[in-house]
């Protein structure tokens, strides 16, 4: 029933991906990745995965766009043909003929598609994902969690709480490290200013 929405969304996804690959303006490419994130999040929503769609919309469309723009502001806009960098920097040109990469990509794609044939059909009740974890998760999570209706949240935040805590700590540490690397370190001479982690400049 949702086909009339799913098919145009997938077509738009493909068109956006081709545009990202072909467009030469990096600024516009960042914009198109934002569009891509919105579209894929909508598709995940239609596939009944609102939590994944939530993450995709927040991270893919929000944070990644801003990070990409920050990267763009740190790098030159155009591909530098010749300039201050020596010619050795561009020694590794893409090969002239596109046939060999095309062949490799085609073979890899065929292998991946062949791999999906072994997967159970979408929504198959006998699929391992429906059968393998004990149904007790579904049965017990509501009384265990004092009536929390979402089993995914119960598993993620309570049964695997320490796991999630560890993952969050890792991501937090990585974020702090990235901020420390990217911060402006050619500070003005005021030593008290250079101590600030947020890199505020006068």
């Amino acid at each position, binding site marked *: 029933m*949702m086909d*009339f*929405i799913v098919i*145009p*969304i997938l077509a*738009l996804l493909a*068109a*956006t991906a081709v*545009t990202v690959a072909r*467009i030469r303006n990096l*600024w*516009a490419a*960042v*914009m*198109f990745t*934002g*569009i891509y994130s*919105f*579209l894929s*999040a*909508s598709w995940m*929503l*239609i596939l009944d995965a*609102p939590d994944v*769609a*939530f993450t995709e*919309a*927040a991270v893919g*469309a*929000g944070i990644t*766009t*801003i*990070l990409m*723009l*920050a990267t*763009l*502001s*740190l790098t030159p806009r155009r591909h530098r043909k010749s300039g201050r960098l020596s010619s050795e920097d561009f020694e590794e040109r893409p090969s002239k003929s596109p046939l060999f990469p095309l062949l490799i990509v085609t073979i890899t794609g065929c292998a991946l598609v062949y791999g999906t044939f072994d997967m159970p059909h979408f929504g198959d009740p006998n699929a391992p994902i429906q059968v393998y974890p004990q149904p007790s998760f579904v049965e017990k999570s509501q009384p265990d969690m004092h009536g929390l209706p979402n089993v995914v949240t119960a598993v993620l935040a309570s049964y695997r709480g320490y796991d999630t805590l560890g993952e969050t700590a890792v991501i937090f540490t990585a974020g702090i490290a990235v*901020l420390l690397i*990217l*911060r*402006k370190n*050619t500070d003005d001479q005021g030593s008290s200013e250079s101590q600030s982690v*947020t*890199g*505020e*400049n006068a």
Partner: protein
Amino acid sequence: MDLLLAVAETNSSFDNALVVTSVAILVTMILALIRAMLGPTVFDRVLALNMFGTKTVLLICVIGFLTGRTDFLDLALLYSLMNFIGMVALLRFSEYGSFREEGADIGSSAKS
């Protein structure tokens, strides 16, 4: 909202109206994407992107009513927030060329 949902469950012509609405939104999305691809200036692209985000929010709302799931509306809210933040970041970048003004931004680390 509950009234609308009740109407949607009982009335099939309301359902048809939702289908027509979503098709119209999809056509608008395609047009906006074409404008974003062609757009000669930065501002054409910004407008097209903004419109695309708005249409996504609308489409999610319509899908929520089609399938009778009102929790999609929260997601639509989040999408519109993300659209706004992304738009502010894009415009800031296109005006200043970096985020270095008013250092509280995430890109305040940009070299000067």
